[in-house]
Each structure stands twice: as structure tokens, then as C-alpha cells.
């Protein structure tokens, strides 16, 4: 319930407010300029921060580093074998690919320590003598829904190993295996470049990379819906 006193009070409050407004209107422009600058600043801060997070922090957090169980020198082994990559990574009689060699392969030469490297000694003691398969981390491992035929690419299409696997054959030691904590696959699949841009054909191994080449070479482009490759060519 308002009384005459209240009314009086309200009037004077209003008057005071008006005075205050007038007082500050002089410096009001300065304050608005300041707040727009602040807005812009925060926008920029947010923008830059998220770019940094997205481009730098995110890849660091996303990928975890693992070392291969044994230090392996491709270059050295290449010098010692006759048939290049195929000496250890060979086709079986039924056309399937042996992939990463099994212990039996290595034992052909490494029944006993051959050289004087620490790595080899470790390998022989921990794996050969104990009959344990080496749990290699495979960079090019694809999801189980993928069917990839090495015979179709190497024998039929005459491709070389480097086009997809890069220069691993010339490495002196195997690079660390960086795997994606969420999807559990190697960084080699999406590509080391977090934006997914590739410079060499071996930088990425996602479906679209395979499809690019298939479209170019007109391989089984029989899909009625996409007019590109039929799904069952590479999936099962």
C-alpha cells in the first residue's frame, strides 16, 4: 500500500536516477567503446584459444605413443635379404598375404644371436627362446569390416610398397606407434596431419583415399547408387 511519503520518496529516487544518468552520459561513450573492445577481445581470445586447442592440444591428447616391442632395423635387413620386401612379407600359395612376419620367419636366421646389437639380444632371449610371438603394432591395420587384397594391388595392378606404406623399408628403426585413444587405430590411418591433408599417397589410409585411386583407375565402379566402387569390393 503506498502512502504519500512513499510517493515522495519514489519521485526523489527517480530524480536522482536521472541526475546519475546525465552525469554518466558524458563518460558513457567511453564505457561502450571499452565494452565493445572487451567483446572483440574475448572473441579473439576464444577464437585463438580454440584454434590452438583444436590444432595443437587436441592431437597431443588424442594420440598416445607406444614403442614397438622390439627395435627393428629395416635398412639393415634389406641389405641382407635377396628379394627385398617380399623376403619377409610374402604371398602364400592361395594368394593371401602373410603381412607382418611371424616368429617362425625370424627364427630362420635368428635362432641364435647373429650380431652384437642389444636389440637383437633382447629379441632372442625374450621371444625366440621363449617361443613367444612378437606383439608387433601394425601401422596399417584396418578395421575388421575391410577386405584388402595385396594380390590385387601388387600383382594385378603392379603397385609398389611405397605408394601405400611410405619409406618404412629404408628406416633404421621403427617409428613410435601413435594410436588414437578413441578409435584405437594408428595415426597412419587418418594421417599425421590432423587436418587430413596429405602430400604423399602414403600419408593417409582412409576409405576415401582408396576410393580416389579406384575412381581414377576405373576399378569396379559398379555401384548403382554412388556410381563409384561397389561396397563389396573392399568390405565384407
Amino acid at each position, binding site marked *: 500500500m503506498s502512502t504519500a511519503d512513499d510517493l515522495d520518496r519514489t519521485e526523489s529516487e527517480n530524480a536522482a536516477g536521472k541526475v546519475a544518468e546525465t552525469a554518466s552520459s558524458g563518460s558513457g561513450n567511453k564505457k561502450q567503446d571499452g*565494452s565493445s573492445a572487451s*567483446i572483440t577481445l574475448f572473441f579473439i*581470445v*576464444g577464437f585463438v584459444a*580454440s584454434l590452438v586447442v583444436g590444432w595443437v592440444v587436441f592431437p597431443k591428447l*588424442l594420440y598416445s605413443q607406444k614403442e614397438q616391442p622390439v627395435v627393428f632395423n629395416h635398412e639393415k635387413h634389406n641389405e641382407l635379404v635377396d628379394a627385398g620386401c617380399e623376403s619377409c612379407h610374402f604371398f602364400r600359395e592361395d594368394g*593371401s598375404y602373410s603381412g607382418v612376419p611371424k616368429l617362425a620367419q625370424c627364427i630362420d636366421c635368428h635362432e641364435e644371436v647373429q650380431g652384437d646389437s642389444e636389440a637383437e639380444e633382447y629379441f632372442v632371449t625374450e621371444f625366440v627362446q621363449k617361443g613367444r610371438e612378437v606383439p608387433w603394432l601394425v601401422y596399417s591395420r584396418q578395421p575388421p569390416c575391410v577386405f584388402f587384397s595385396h594380390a590385387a594391388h601388387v600383382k594385378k595392378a603392379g603397385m609398389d610398397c611405397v605408394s601405400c606404406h611410405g619409406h618404412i623399408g629404408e628406416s633404421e628403426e621403427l617409428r613410435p606407434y601413435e594410436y588414437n585413444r578413441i*578409435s584405437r587405430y594408428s595415426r597412419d590411418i587418418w594421417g599425421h596431419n590432423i587436418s587430413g591433408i596429405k602430400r604423399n599417397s602414403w600419408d593417409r589410409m582412409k576409405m576415401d583415399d582408396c576410393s580416389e585411386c579406384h575412381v581414377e583407375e576405373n576399378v569396379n565402379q559398379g555401384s548403382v547408387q554412388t556410381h563409384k566402387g561397389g561396397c563389396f569390393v573392399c568390405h565384407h
Partner: protein
Amino acid sequence: MKIDRRSFLSFLIGGAAGTALSPLPWKLTDDISIWTQMWPWVPIPEKGEVSTVNSACTLCPGGCGISVRKVDDRVVKIEGLAGHPINNGGLCTLGLAGAQLLYGPQRVKAPMKNVGGRLVEISWEEALGEISARLKELRERGQPHRVACIAGTDRGTVPELLNRFLTVYGSPQFFRVPSIQDTYELALYLMQGVRASAGFDFENADYVLSFGSGLLDGWGTPVNIFQAHSRWCERSGKLVQIEPRQSRTAAKADSWIPINPGTEGVLALSLAGVIVKESLYNADFVNAQSSGFDSWQQVLLENYDTESAAKITGVDPSTIAKLARDFAGARKPLAVCGRGKGQSPGSLKEVMAVHALNALVGGIDRQGGVRAVPEPDYIDWPEPEMDAVAAAGMQQERVDQAGGSQYPHARYLLNRLPEAVNSSADSPLQVLFVSDANPCYSLPNSKAFSDAFKKIPMVVSFSSYLGETAELADFILPSPIYLEQYEDRPIAAGYPLPIVNLTRPVVKPLFNTRSVGDVVIELARSLGGTVAAAFPWEDYQTCLKETLGDKWIVLNEKGYWAGDKLGSGGQPATFETKSSRFEFTNAEIDAMARFAPVEPEGDIAAFPLVLVPYDTMRLWNGYIGDPPFVIKIVPDTVLKNNDVLIEINPATASELGLQDGQAANLTTPRGTARVRVHLFEGIMPGVVALPAGLGHTAHSKFLAGKGANVNALIGSVEDAATGYEAVWGIRAKLDKA
């Protein structure tokens, strides 16, 4: 600087813009979508080196060859072996699911002992020690004849080792699981004088008259017969199926003759009567190569004219006459019997009547006919030396009295074992070995078997699977399964040539198992004396290799060894009877009980219906129970949730006030079961049918607790002539639940 709402918002917007221009949301979406498909409980089978190992399947007596595909050391697929004479690449439902038996949850992983009603794992030394001690004790007391053994077959090194053990130990109590071969072997002996199994040349026959044989439901060598049937389709061969219910065989037949159950023998004799009366028989054979024809035909013409037969069988006289004329008029007619899968011996005289039909048309030992298949004779061990205890023990009568004065012709009467054990206070059998058999489930009168087995103080099972009999055993000494070991398997399931398969180890034994042969040799050795001396081999593998001799190489290369193919002209039949001819009848046969249709147990007033069991390719009723893939394909007209559906003619059902799908109680003089009604036009009025192979209480959760065991509802009925199990069904009633 104050962070007010606008600044905060612009910070967020800046952040959003930056995030959108960074790879974070796109990569994260891609990764999370991959993550959603990588649930840890979905197995990822590893790729590896693919290899193929050829072997043989032993899950049924059929003897197919198999080709097993492995990835590294895992069995991934079992397929039929192309080129094998029995199956040539095809394979049945059970064989195809073999990998599930190898890796499945019903495997016994180590020796077990029944301790206070529970099965606990023990060591081999302990188990064999206890069993050996009991065996020694029985010998010392002069009671070796109280040890018995039940085996799935009596052919091959493993059953022969078991038999040899019993003999040299001092017991005549070796049992073979019953089948139609029991009666066929006896028929061949009485009518042809030979000790052989019956083989049927379906491949070359052009008119097959089947008295209830489930030729396309698992009889004999199933895959082989399926292929013969396909040939009949291509070449206008005819199949006539005589049975009360339209099995798959009857559905595929050119003609299905519904008949009152149990009267098939009457029909066979009446057909013979027509053939004789109208002189449609093969005169060359009958006149020059047979004896006893005159007295035999006399009986036919006096008692089995078509009118009388029609009254008993329910088959029209004109149909009977036509059948007889068609059968005798075909170029290569072949008659066969053995209900369903042929797991029951049946009435001897009925089998002889059907066999006589083949003789009448000259179908003995010729292409497209029935052949006496000799047992392969590669097992040629020297006679064991017997000590006094053993000699005395072998003189004792068998508990089933087979070979005794009352049952002189029978070799094994497993159906009589329960009564012998259950009827006396102190079980006549003290130790029972069971190999490759599940009698407490798969034989009629199964409850009596369970009671008997519970009563026998020591039951030792060699089972690889936790079946009903194994669960009742005092000891389980698990043997490796067929995919894990070498074993010879002579096939006798009606195949027209002698053939031996060799199983080979496709994988190393998965569990702590030992082959039956090794266990027998070890037990024998532990008993010392003449018993040990009868087993000079180091182990079973050595025994097998030495026994097979030069056949070992052939068997290893091809997987099988087969006798000579029957030429187009056939061989002149050799008969070793007194007359050196085929004997339609003789003094010995005449001395046996006269033929009469086997009557079903039960009073017709209280039990107005007749229950018959039926066999199918999707339900297996022997030692092996359905693996998960096979029980999965049982139709919903047979099994619904856990209820078995009983087949009943709609007219009969409406008389009883029963509707399709309704729950009902099936009662026989032997037991009762809860069922659901399935109206089926393919079954005679008054007859109801349940499938064999359900109602398991053991094996795995995929099989146990489903439906009812028809063997528990059917009692045992002996064949008057031989003592063999001749039950084909039982009277029953069906009431609303």
C-alpha cells in the same frame, strides 16, 4: 577488466568459430563413430594362414568324409569332402555344426568323479587308480563277469580293444547299442548263412519300397541316400514310402502309403503273396538259387491274402496288389525297412519278410539290390592267453541272456539290461563302462536305464560331452573328439561296400583328455598278468598304426579305404547255408516264434490314441545332442519356446476338442508330458507323433529343458522271436492341460 555476460558470450562464440575451423569436431565425430562400433564384447576373429585338413565325421554312423578349414590353429568351418564315396562333398546339419561341439560349453575338460551327487575334477592317476583297484578286487573275488561295457559299435580298434579287455579280464558282457543292423545281420545269417551287415545299393535302384525307413530323415548313410534320391529325380526312379506319418521321406516320395503303425510286416508278407500268386517273381533266382520257397509261400497264401491284410494294415486291397505288381515289374526294385533312422532292431520276422521281397525279385547281391557286406578283417590280433579266472568268468551267462537258451540268436540285448539290474537287490553288474553311447536318454524305456545306472556301483563314462548318461556316471574319463585324434571307423550303416574311414587330429586336443584306447591299455597294464600281456602295444597310436598295417598309408592319403565297387553284372551270390542257397525258410527259422505284428503297450479304452516317435535331420537322438546351430533350425511347428508340439490329425483333434497351439497333457502307460497341439494333415487319424531328440536334461543350455523325451514315454517291447527291442510306439491319451 570485468568478465561480463557479453564478454563471456563472445568468448564462447569465438571459441565456437575457432573450433569449427579446427579439425576437432570433424575428427572427433569420425573417431566417436568408429568407437561406437568397437564394443569390447564383440569378438574380432584374427586373420591368419588358411589350411585344410581332410578327415572323417563320426557324429552319426553314416561315415561322411569331411574337409576342415582352419585359420592358424582354429577350426573355422567343416565341409563335406569332395570325392569321398559316401558323401562326395555334401554334409548334413550335424556334421556342419561340428565346430560347435569342439569348442562348445558341453565339453568335459578333465576327468571327473561324482562326489556326493556333484561332479568334481580329479586327476587321471586318481581316477584310473580307483577304477583299477575295483577291477582287481572283483577278479580276486572270482567275479570278473560283473564288469560290462556298452559301446556305440563293435567294429574298429577301439571297440575291439574294449571287447578284448573284457574277454581277457573274464567277462562276456560286451554290449552294442541297438539298431536295425541287429536284425538285418541275423536275417542275413539265417537266410544266407553269412555273417555280414546289410548294404543297399540305392544309387542304382529304380524303384525303392521303404517300410518306414527315414531315407531322407537320417537313415543309414544320410548324405549318400540324399544323392541317390536326387538321381532318382533325374532318372525317373520311384520311391514309395509306407508309414503312418508323412515324414520328409514320405513328402518327397512319389507315393505315400499311410498304414496302421506296427503292421508293416503284414503288408510286406501280403505283397509277397501277390507276387507269388501272380507268378511275378524272378523264376531264375527262386528256382535255381533258393530253398524253402514252397513251405514259405504256403504260409503266405493261407494267411496274408490282400483282404485279410487290408483289415489289419488299413491299406486298400487294390493298392496292395498294385504295389506288388509295380515292385516286381521294376527293373531294379529294392525293399528296405528300419523305422526312422533305423535305431531300433524291430521284429526279426518283419525284417525277413522285407528281405524276402528282395529275394523274390532277384535283388540279392546285384546292382541296385541288397548286398551282404562283409566286415573288414584288418583287425587281426592274436588270441589272448586266458588265465583261470578269465576262463571261468567267460563261462558265465550274460545279464541280458543273449546267446543263452531263451535267446539263442541274439548277440547283444541291451534292452534287457535295465530289468536285469533293477530286479535284483544286489546289482549283477558292479562296473559298467560306457563309450560312444547315451542309453539313459536315447533308448526306449530311458527311465529304467537311468534307474539301473544309478544302481550299478561304478559307472565309468568315456564321454567327451556332459550328456545324461555322463551326468549319472561315477567317473567320466573324457576322450578327445573326432577332430582331435586318429581313429579307424568301419562303416556299417547300410552302405553297399565295405568301407573304413580314418579320423585324424585336425587340432591338438583342447582339454585334458585321453583316448579310450590309451585308457584301456593303461588299465590292462595296471592289472598285470595275462590281462596286461594281451595288450603289448605302447599306446593306442602304436596299436592303431600296427593294426592297420599297409592300410595306414592309404587311409592317411585319402582318408578312407573302400572295398571293390559292385560291377554292373554283380557277383554271383554266395550263400553259406546248409543248402548253399538263399533260404526263404528253414528248420531254424520255423522253430522261432511265429510272425505277429508287435502290439503297442496300453489298454485301448484308457489310451485311445497311438503315439509314434519320428526322426528328422534336425534333431539327433543318439550319443550326440543337437549343437546350437541345429536346435536353432527346428521349426516352430515342432518346438515353441520350451514346449514340443505333438502332431495330430485335425479330425482327431476336433473329436477331442483340441485346437491348434493349445497346451495339452500327453499320457502313456509309462509317463506323462506337457505338449502343445499341432494340427497336421500328414498323419493318420488316431495316431499322434512326437520327435525324438528333444527333452534333454543335460548337454548345454541351448539344448536342455526343451520339449519332452519321447523315450521316457515309451516302454520296452521284446520281439518274440529274438528278444530284440521291437517297440515302435505306445498307446496314449491327450487331454487339455
